[in-house]
């Protein structure tokens, strides 16, 4: 092309028409190419720098949130399943960061509480919150067998009785006969899991499941049942019952006055220690030990939803004569209120041991037979006789037949290495209605003030709570019970 190669405006050389070969291109003069690049890049670079800023500002302006903020990632507290009572009452709810216990101290010892993430990956710190942590962390609810109405009744009467008797603490366990469902498990003193940091650890402990103590005479029916089951005695057997008896280095004595010879049912009625010592001579130590384990004493309960303690049953090889004698009357053997209730349920279930359970869908060990139905019913009849004929009228629920036994035992002090004076526990274990039990209950008080007794303190507690159960369940009164019942 013959036209000038210089653009009049930009001074940029134009290209000739033939762009096919580099040879035909016009080479710019030295220094001209640099100028050309500077001219073309500057606005482009400015645009490239400015426009993203403008675009970003425009974008943030669209937010209408004022100053732009750095995108934040939400911090989500992990979900946690709720804990419900058998009727759906919410006992615990909320995620791990904000856990609430709307019912306050109701069943607080069973529920426990949760807190910050622990090194073992749990949030639960106590109770069901701890034992069912994996389930709750998965967002699944835990449906407990507790009946909140009965739990409230148990707590209310337990508190009143503990305060009246000046006891240090107390607990109540209620089991549904036949199923082993734990309907109530109360411990006093109470604590509010919403403010658990305010309480001493001893207050938080679930005594109904964990308090190991020597239960006293409530163990006697088990020995009688074992002897009956082993055909060592018959219900009509007469046994010597002197006022005192010396075994090894220890002297045992009876509290109640009675005839020097007693039938088996009267041994329980008068809670004769000496008669029991005579009866237990039918057993070798290993045999008695095996029977105790058969009832579940000294063994862990097959309960996975809550921590329990197995109690203490020393090896029979270590027993000295007074140890076997003591075990017969409920000393030198330690149990928990829950374990004791599960064992008493054997009499209620016609000889079948039904493992207790706290979760509605809890898989526990299969029930197994411990006693024959005849023996279990016979002992249950003796316990009914004991309540009706002895000084246990305070424990009889009006209109309802009941079977039960008191127990008073000394409390061992590990610090002192002895049984201090004035330290004793009061227990009442029973079931109702006696002919076809629906409920098994154990009440226990520790270290009451002087003057309190299982007959005058624990038995009325059994009656007070039992009356609430009868009213709540609508158990019809039986005519014979109404005829035989007197009210104070």
């Amino acid at each position, binding site marked *: 092309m013959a036209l000038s190669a210089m653009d009049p405006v930009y001074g940029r050389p134009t290209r000739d028409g033939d762009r096919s070969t580099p040879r035909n291109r016009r080479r710019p003069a030295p220094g001209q190419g640099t100028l050309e690049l500077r001219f073309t890049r500057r606005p482009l670079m400015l645009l490239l720098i400015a426009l993203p800023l403008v675009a970003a500002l*425009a*974008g*943030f302006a669209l937010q209408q949130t004022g100053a732009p903020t750095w995108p934040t990632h939400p911090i989500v507290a992990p979900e946690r399943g709720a804990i419900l009572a058998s009727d759906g009452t919410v006992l615990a709810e909320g995620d791990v960061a904000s856990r609430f216990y709307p019912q*306050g101290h109701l069943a607080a010892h069973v529920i426990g509480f949760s807190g910050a993430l622990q090194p073992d990956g749990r949030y639960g710190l106590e109770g069901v919150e701890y034992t069912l942590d994996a389930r709750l962390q998965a967002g699944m609810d835990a449906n407990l067998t507790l009946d909140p109405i009965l739990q409230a009744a148990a707590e209310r009467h337990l508190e009143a009785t503990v305060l009246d008797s000046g006891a240090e603490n107390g607990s109540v366990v209620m089991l549904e006969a036949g199923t082993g469902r734990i309907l109530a498990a109360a411990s006093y003193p109470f604590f509010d899991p919403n403010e658990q940091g305010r309480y001493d650890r001893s207050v938080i402990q679930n005594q109904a499941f964990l308090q190991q103590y020597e239960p006293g005479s409530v163990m006697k029916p088990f020995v009688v049942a074992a002897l009956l089951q082993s055909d060592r005695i018959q219900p009509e057997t007469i046994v010597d019952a002197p006022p005192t008896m010396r075994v090894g280095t220890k002297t045992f004595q009876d509290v109640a006055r009675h005839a020097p010879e007693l039938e088996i049912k009267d041994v329980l009625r008068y809670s004769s220690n000496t008669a029991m010592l005579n009866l237990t001579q039918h057993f070798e130590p290993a045999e008695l030990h095996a029977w105790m384990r058969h009832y579940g004493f000294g063994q862990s309960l097959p309960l996975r939803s809550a921590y329990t303690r197995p109690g203490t049953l020393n090896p029979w090889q270590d027993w000295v004569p007074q140890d076997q004698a003591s075990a017969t009357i409920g000393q030198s053997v330690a149990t928990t209120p829950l374990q004791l209730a599960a064992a008493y349920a054997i009499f209620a279930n016609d000889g079948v041991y039904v493992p207790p359970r706290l979760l509605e869908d809890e898989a526990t060990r299969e029930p197994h037979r411990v006693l024959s139905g005849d023996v279990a019913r016979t002992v249950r009849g003796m316990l009914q006789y004991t309540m009706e004929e002895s000084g246990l009228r305070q424990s009889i629920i*009006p209109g309802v037949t009941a079977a039960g036994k008191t127990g008073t035992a000394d409390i061992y002090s590990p610090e002192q290495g002895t049984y201090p004076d004035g330290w004793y526990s009061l227990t009442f274990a029973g079931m109702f209605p006696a002919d076809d039990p629906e409920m098994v209950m154990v009440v226990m008080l520790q270290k009451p003030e002087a003057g309190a007794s299982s007959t005058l303190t624990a038995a009325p507690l059994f009656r007070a709570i039992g009356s609430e159960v009868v009213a*709540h369940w609508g158990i019809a009164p039986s005519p014979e019970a109404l005829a035989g019942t007197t009210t104070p």
Partner: protein
Amino acid sequence: MTQATAPRILRFVPAYLALLLVLAVLGATNQNLLDHELTLMEQGETARRDVAAYRADAARIDGPLAVARWAQDNGMVPVPEVDAVQHLAPLPAPLPTTEDVRPQGLEVRTAWR
């Protein structure tokens, strides 16, 4: 950069700018949605706390413990214990005090009218 590539790049500038604007709008929308989600989560947490607080309030009124306490305070007893209840005569009506005695007389009625 050669003379040939500069106009070519310039041709992509509008598209580039448009993409930047789209990106900015998307970013802003995304941030808005995130903020909205955060707000909803906060509201949800507040609602859960409110529900828990209301449930606790309700438990103080009609929870098992409250009902049991109310029944006891009002002298109610379980059905099996009804025969064991000792019925007490109601307390005598309180004597009227001087403040309770209304002045008698026409002027009072007149004033009342």
